[in-house]
Structures are given as C-alpha cells and as structure tokens.
C-alpha cells in the first residue's frame, strides 16, 4: 500500500519534488504577468513619467498622490464610482433575491427559464452598453418613444439621470450573477429549520427574515463583494454611452485612469490613481471579512 504522503515526496530539494514541479510553471507565469507588473506599476506611480514628455522621468515619491488628493475632479470621479456601485449592487441584490426565490419554486420549464434569465451576464459589456444607448436614445430609441406615447418624457442621459441610467444597465446585465449565486445558496440550505418553522406556524415572511436570510448571509456577502469589486472597475458602459459626460457626471475611476493614461499619456498619474483603487479594494475586503467574522461570533 502506498501512503498518500509518498506521492509528493522526494529526497532532493523540496522545490524539485514532483508536486512542486507541477506547480512551478504556474508560479513562474504568475510572477511574470502579475507580480512583476504590480511592482513595476507601483514604481511608476512614484515617478513623474509621461510619454509625451520623456525627458521628465524622475523619482518624486508621493507627489503624484498628493496631486490627486487635492484634485477636485478625482473626488468627483470617486463619488460617481461609489454612487454607481451602491445603486447597482443594492438593486442587483434585491432583484436577484426575488428572482432566485421565484426560480427555486419553479417546477416546469426550469432549464429554459434559467438559461434566459442568466443570458445577459455572458454578453460582452460593450455590446450591452451600445444596445442600451440605442434603446434609450432620445430620437431613435424604443423606450423613449414608448414612454412618449404615454405622455412621459425622460432624458435618460441628462446631467442628473445619466449615472443612474448606467447603474441600471449594470443591474440588467449583472442581476443574473446574483441569481446564480443566491440560487446555489438557496438550494444548499438544510430543510429542518424550515419544517420546524412550518410546524410552529411561522409566517412566510418571518421564515424568510429569521431563517433564510441568516443562513444565506455568507453567500450574500461573497456575491455582494464580487459585484462591488467588479462595479468599481466599470468602464464599458461609460466608454460606449457617455464618455464621462455630460460634464464629468458619469466619469468613473476606470474611465478616468484610461483618459489620464491613454488619452493624455500621463502614465505615472494614471498608475497613482489606479493604486488608490487598490487601497479602496483592500478597505472593502477587510470591512466585509470583519463583518462576516462578527456575524459568525454572534451566532
């Protein structure tokens, strides 16, 4: 009988053992395409490099960051992104839960219904952006024309509405992801607590609030985290539809970085803004994980 440990053990240096040799290509590739660019990017953000002005390439340490933090445009962009994420993710969670609960009880035609409901998340976001730009266009769009026949006139891409419109395009495309995650969670719930609640005569609403939600908390946190991190990177809808306008009303962090880096070729400043995104991401993750740990302790 061969013991499990013997499979991966060799007498030579551990990195040359069978099990490490199988991981080595991945380690090397991840170092080259992820770790090295990451370090390089941090280094660039400490300089004042710009392609249009190659002579200025000095180490300025935190100067780029200081410049960003007093830039009012940065804070506008920051605010836009946060509003976008909060609006999009909260509606995705709300609709996602409703749809997942409805689908769970579905008995007939489940495969067809699920396939259609999940379809939007597989389309390239730029196509979704253009589709809605077209659909909501004031002159040529189907929805404004329909609303006009009902006597309602909304400019979907005005100064105050554009950002919310973009958030709802995100809701259209990514609620399916919430459905996918929540449905997986709902289907793995144990049956006993629900039977007990039924025997005790608890109402459906109470059962959902006191049993389903607490049991689902871990998967809700993961789903919200994934969507929030993805939402921070929103680019395609902005690029397809508004290009940050009207004014700067829909300029998001990712689009701002694109504009700085590859519109103006101010690569150091773009990298510095990108690193502020990394900091935001780390704060979000730590906050979420803390919340989860607290929840676990309370139970």
């Amino acid at each position, binding site marked *: 009988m061969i013991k499990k440990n013997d499979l991966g053990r060799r007498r030579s240096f551990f990195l040359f053992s069978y099990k490490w040799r199988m991981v080595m290509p991945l380690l090397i590739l991840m170092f080259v395409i992820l770790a090295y660019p990451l370090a390089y990017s941090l280094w660039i953000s400490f300089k004042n490099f710009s392609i249009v002005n190659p002579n200025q390439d000095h180490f300025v340490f935190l100067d780029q960051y200081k410049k960003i933090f007093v830039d009012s445009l940065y804070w506008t962009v920051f605010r836009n992104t946060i509003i976008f994420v909060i609006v999009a993710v909260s509606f995705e969670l709300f609709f996602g839960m409703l749809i997942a609960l409805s689908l769970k009880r579905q008995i007939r035609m489940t495969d067809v219904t699920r396939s259609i409901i999940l379809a939007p998340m597989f389309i390239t976001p730029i196509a979704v952006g253009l589709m809605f730009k077209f659909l909501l266009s004031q002159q*040529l769009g189907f929805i404004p024309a329909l609303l006009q026949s009902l006597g309602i006139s909304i400019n979907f891409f005005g100064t105050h509405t554009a950002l919310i419109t973009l958030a709802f395009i995100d809701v259209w495309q990514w609620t399916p992801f919430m459905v996918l995650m929540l449905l997986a969670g709902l289907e793995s719930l144990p049956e006993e607590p629900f039977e007990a609640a039924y025997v005790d005569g608890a109402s459906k609403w109470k059962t959902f609030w006191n049993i389903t939600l607490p049991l689902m908390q871990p998967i809700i946190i993961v789903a919200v985290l994934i969507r929030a991190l993805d939402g921070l*990177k929103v680019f395609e809808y902005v690029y397809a539809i508004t290009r940050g306008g009207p004014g700067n009303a829909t300029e998001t962090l990712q689009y701002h970085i694109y504009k700085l880096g590859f519109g103006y070729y101010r690569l150091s400043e773009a990298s510095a803004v990108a690193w502020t995104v990394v900091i935001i991401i780390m704060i979000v993750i730590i906050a979420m994980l803390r919340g989860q740990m607290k929840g676990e302790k309370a139970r």
Partner: protein
Amino acid sequence: MRAYQKETNLHKTIRILFLFIVLIFILTPFLWVILSSFKTPAELSQPTSIVFSPVPDNWINVLTGNIPINFVNSLIVGFITVAVSLLVGLPAAYSISQFKTGGNTARFTILISEIVPSAVLVVPIFLVSYFFQINGTLIPVTIAHLTFVLPIVTWFLIGFFDSVPKSLEEQALIDGCGRFEAFRKIVLPQVLPGIGAASIFGFVLSWNDLFYALILGGEDTQTLPVAISSFDTFRGVQLGEMSVAILVSAIPTIILSFFIQKRLIKGMGGGAVKE
C-alpha cells in the same frame, strides 16, 4: 414537495407573473436589436415600427467588412489564452488539490490575484510591450487576458480535482502506472467535463474584454469588442450595422453559456479553502 413548501394559488400566480415580467425585460432589448438588424435606415428612424419588410443589407455589409477579421482575432486570443491557462493550470491545480502543495496560501494567492485591478496592470504591460516592440499586436492582449483567465481557470480546476476520490489514483499506482501516467490516464478523464466548463468560461471572459484589447491592441489587430465600440459614432445609417455587430459578438457567448451554467455554480464554490 414538503408541506412547508406548499404555496397558495395566489402566491403561485404572482410568482409566475413576476418571472414573466423579468423574462420580458431581458428579452425585449434582444428582440429589438434583432428587428433593427433587418431594418433600412429609413425604418430605423421609426423606433416603434414592428411590421416592416426585412432586408438583409446590414448583415451583408457587416459580414463582408472587417468584422469577420475581428471575429478571428478574438478567437485567436481566446484560444491561446485558454490553452496556456490549461497547460499551466492543470498540473498546478492537480498538485494543489491532491498533494496540498502550498496549502491554503496557494489557494488564497490564486483567488486574490483575480482581484488585481486591470487599471494597475495595464500601464506596465503597455510599457513592456512597447520596449519589446510588440505593442499593437495580439501578444500583449493575450498576456493581459492571461492575468485574469489563468487564476480563475486554475481556481475552478482545483475545485473539480478536489471532487475526484483519491483511491482512484492510488489504485492506478498500485497497478503499476507511473505518477504522471496516473494523472494523465486516470485522473484527467474524471475531470474532463470540469475542464470543458472552465475552458468555456475562460474563453468567454477573454472574448468579452474591452479594456485591455482597446489599449494594448492596434488598428489592424482589433478584437470584436474594440471593433464594436467604434460603431459609437452615432449616425442613423450605422445603427442597423451596429445591431448586427452586437448580435455577432453576443450570440456565440450566449450559446456557450448554455453548456456551462450548471457547472458554473459548482466551480465557483469548488476551490474554496479546505482544511
């Protein structure tokens, strides 16, 4: 159906009505784009017209233009990205799953690298490809796609390998298979459906990317999303062709998604940290 799962007729009606409305919300944009792709420019200026005589002009224009080239570019990038991910990810995922190589640190590193924002990586990749004079080709685009496809594919594979019983491999070793042979002949076939699902998912991710392809690709090496984004010069004349381009990019991934939806749920939770 258990007693607690029973629902009243009223509840059932509301639930089905709600799902029906959801389906309408999802399908309307698609149907409208499909209709628009067969309209003439004159008909396109009347958004609510549903009855019209369809013309294939838009489809002919798009399919004899540059879009097929962009389609092939996207295919090339997607295939190479997935192939490299499998080549590198398969043995690593196997080792991490079966021999606990690197322990939870390895699993965590793979997961966390999925979170690195594209905005951070794009500037270095741009500068390095500039240095090697490969900027504007499909090479930096493929490398950039690997940064997010490789970790997620490996993550999925770890999950699928975790579900293979260890006894299978041990039996193969006793029967005189070599270690690599046991991996190739006994374990790999067990996870083949999982490999298929992970590959399709990685391909879809690569296919759908705009940010990297827009910045790192060149005029002649546009992928499909980049080509589509240039339709945005909004003239009524182009709307029909844009509708075709949207459909050409969306239909392949929607069809592929039908094959992987069930496994996707498993894959997402599959690589989770194990004791």
